């Protein structure tokens, strides 16, 4: 496909056939799916006309219920009804315990893996629960758009760490979605806002959702969205406002803190309703069981002040990290349902000394932006000519454990991705033949204050005196913000590498099994599906190669090279409508290999053209 995309950026092989792709905002409280239709990005509604799907999943013995009706059962069936599952994504048992008595669930699983929740259908991991939400959104999209999806862009909080991102990607895979990209929520919002307002300059996105807080500072320049810095708190959101009110009620009513899960759920529902009512009222009456009281807006604001202050502190840090002064921020955009709280808006307005923008529905803006990115990634050309480009950053520093339990940063936070960086180390003992590589994420100096991402061992280093071996450790972060690490002893060439999979994440086998289960449940014929996918891949490759040959074949290939490619094209054409999936797959690979050098040459020539300041279409002519 790349061959094609170089020829004409973003244009699909058949101009009238749009490739279906969606943006999904998988939120703590609510989730949405959006798509670009007739050039406009908009959320897709269900049969009842609702665009918002509450992120609630209720397990029955024989079926799964997702959305509004499941949410309604949170207090009557607390153990089997899972809400705010996003807060558990990629978290170990220790993190979950820290959320502590906020959660009514019965957890199973040891220290070393992601804890599962015990339900009437057995143990369910947060990944599986999230996948249920995604499946509903996928079905909604396929029904509304009338076809299978090429893929989806799933949004994640910018401040999500490696484990949380990986878990989200796994959930999408289990739901049968092809993930085109994990996109940071504030960046998605910036896209929706920026394209809508044709904004240029520095923009701050303040995104306070149900369970997470993000702040991102971006520079917008003619279709390029460059994240300068991002920050936040992946455990701060509207849920915490509810908990603050709930604690206040318990205190006022003189109740015991130790209440049963069902009562806890209904207490939180009362708290949430009070919070929402205070958006437009100065005082609300709060009724919980036998107790009756009044909560004023001023009291509520005092309760949440520490959390608001925490968010503002993260804002100041992001501004400092982006190397600009506060006054240079030209616009502030509010994202996330919790920015409806008047005190939040007021505090942000005071800090940035300007009125924050709320033009686009704060609940929908992330999904709308994600859909625009999905549409671009799927290869559909935008109407207004300017190609969209998002340049994002890593939210947290990545590094290695060094002597004395210290973390040595290899890639500092707010570095633009993709990025690859190497650091050299040496052995510290005579004759040392192995080295432990411990990969960490975080800002603190002591490794105990950072998150451990992975450990692996480089073995087979030839015995040398201490300090003689030269071990190069390379970190690579891809455009999804996911990390892989490789270590290599330069003298002997001994290598070891790892795709970082946090220890409490899921293994590939586990994901594959969940995927298989979901297929068999859905009654899909897996083999037929696989063959169809292979045919689609082969067809795309053929179209791409042909378009590339038409455009640059004469300019960049000699006669022999051209003949070799033509021969492989012919072979693939013969196989494409057959039923031999294996042969088709192999031939697709062969054609890819034989066009390898051609693709690289075209990429180089594109770079040269970009330097010469000409548009890509010009060099085609």
């Amino acid at each position, binding site marked *: 496909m*790349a061959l094609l995309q170089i020829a004409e950026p973003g244009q699909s092989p058949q101009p009238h056939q749009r490739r279906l792709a969606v943006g999904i905002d998988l939120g703590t409280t609510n989730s949405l799916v959006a798509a670009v239709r007739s050039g406009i990005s908009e959320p897709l509604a269900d049969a009842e006309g609702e665009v918002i799907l509450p992120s609630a999943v209720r397990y029955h013995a024989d079926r799964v219920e997702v959305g509004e009706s499941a949410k309604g059962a949170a207090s009557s069936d607390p153990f089997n009804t899972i809400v705010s599952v996003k807060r558990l994504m990629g978290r170990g048992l220790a993190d979950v315990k820290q959320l502590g008595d906020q959660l009514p669930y019965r957890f199973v699983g040891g220290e070393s893996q992601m804890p599962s929740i015990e339900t009437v259908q057995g143990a369910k991991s947060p990944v599986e629960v999230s996948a249920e939400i995604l499946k509903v959104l996928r079905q909604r999209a396929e029904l509304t758009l009338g076809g299978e999806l090429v893929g989806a862009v799933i949004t994640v909080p910018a401040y999500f760490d490696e484990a949380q991102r990986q878990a989200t990607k796994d959930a999408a895979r289990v739901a049968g979605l092809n993930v085109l990209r994990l996109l940071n929520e504030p960046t998605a919002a910036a896209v929706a806002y920026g394209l809508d307002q044709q904004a240029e300059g520095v923009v701050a996105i303040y995104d306070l959702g149900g369970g997470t807080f993000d702040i991102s500072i971006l520079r917008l320049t003619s279709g390029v969205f460059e994240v300068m810095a991002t920050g936040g708190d992946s455990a701060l959101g509207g849920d915490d406002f509810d908990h603050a009110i709930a604690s206040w009620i318990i205190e006022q009513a003189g109740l015991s803190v130790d209440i049963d899960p069902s009562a806890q759920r209904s207490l939180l529902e009362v708290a949430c309703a009070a919070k929402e009512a205070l958006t437009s009222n100065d005082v609300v009456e709060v009724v919980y069981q036998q107790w009756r009281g009044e909560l004023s807006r001023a009291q509520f604001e005092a309760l949440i002040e520490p959390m608001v202050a925490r968010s503002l502190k993260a804002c100041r*840090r992001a501004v400092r990290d982006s190397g600009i002064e506060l006054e240079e921020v030209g616009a502030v955009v509010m994202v996330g349902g919790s920015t409806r709280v008047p005190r939040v808006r007021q505090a942000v307005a005071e800090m940035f000394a300007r009125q924050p923008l709320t033009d686009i529905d704060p609940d929908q803006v992330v999904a709308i932006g994600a859909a625009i990115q999905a549409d671009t990634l799927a290869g559909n050309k935008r109407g207004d000519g300017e*190609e969209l*480009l998002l340049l994002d950053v890593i939210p947290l520093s990545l590094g290695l454990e060094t002597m004395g339990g210290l973390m040595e940063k290899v890639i500092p936070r707010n570095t*633009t991705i993709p*990025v690859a960086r190497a650091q050299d180390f040496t052995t510290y003992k005579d004759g040392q033949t192995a080295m432990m590589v411990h990969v960490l994420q975080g800002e603190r100096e002591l490794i105990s204050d950072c998150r451990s991402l992975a450990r692996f061992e480089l073995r087979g280093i030839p015995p040398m005196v201490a300090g003689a071996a030269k071990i190069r450790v390379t970190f*690579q972060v891809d455009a999804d913000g996911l990390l892989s690490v490789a270590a290599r002893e330069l003298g002997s060439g001994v290598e070891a590498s790892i795709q970082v999979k946090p220890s409490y994440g899921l293994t590939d086998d586990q994901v594959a099994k969940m995927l298989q289960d979901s297929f068999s449940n859905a009654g899909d014929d897996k083999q037929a599906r696989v063959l169809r996918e292979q045919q689609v891949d082969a067809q*795309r490759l053929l179209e791409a190669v042909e378009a590339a040959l038409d455009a640059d074949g004469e300019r960049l290939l000699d006669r022999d090279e051209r003949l070799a490619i033509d021969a492989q094209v012919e072979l693939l054409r013969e196989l494409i409508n057959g039923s031999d999936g294996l042969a088709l797959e192999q031939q697709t690979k062969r054609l*890819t290999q034989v066009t390898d050098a051609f693709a690289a040459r075209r990429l180089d020539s594109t*770079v040269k053209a970009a330097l010469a300041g000409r548009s890509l279409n010009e060099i085609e002519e």
Partner: protein
Amino acid sequence: MGTPCHFALFDLQPSFRLDLDQLAVRYRELARAVHPDRFADADAREQRVALEKSASLNEAYQTLKNAPQRARYLLALSGPELPLEVTVHDPDFLMQQIQLREELEELQDADDIEGVLQFKRQLKVASDELNESFAVCWDDPARRDEAERLMRRMQFLDKLSHEVRQLEERLDD
């Protein structure tokens, strides 16, 4: 294919004086051409190539837009590889360093946010002056040793401004 020099990647001649706005424009053009987003649908091999090209473009841009890093890169291009940390024989500057650090410590003890702002402004002026001296020095090949010394000074001020940022963070608590 080897790794092209950072300057060549941007079609620039190696030089310390650089129009940063123009560099940013070029960066965005090149990023459009090689960013993995343009290959979201491609096979693994093409995605890998795009990932690598994008990563080296980002690396080059980071190096060139930061004055101390650019200076260091220039010196490394035209001479032997430079160790990251060396003992600098630069007594005058050493005195100044000690003074600046003491000043910063006093600001921390006094919780003096206004003083930190003032300090930042001073630091900015000093960096600008140093950059200018390096630029002049770099134009004269005979003054390479001096250029290296100036680069070390630039690195120090860069580190110091990083520490100021950390101090600001602590004072914000």
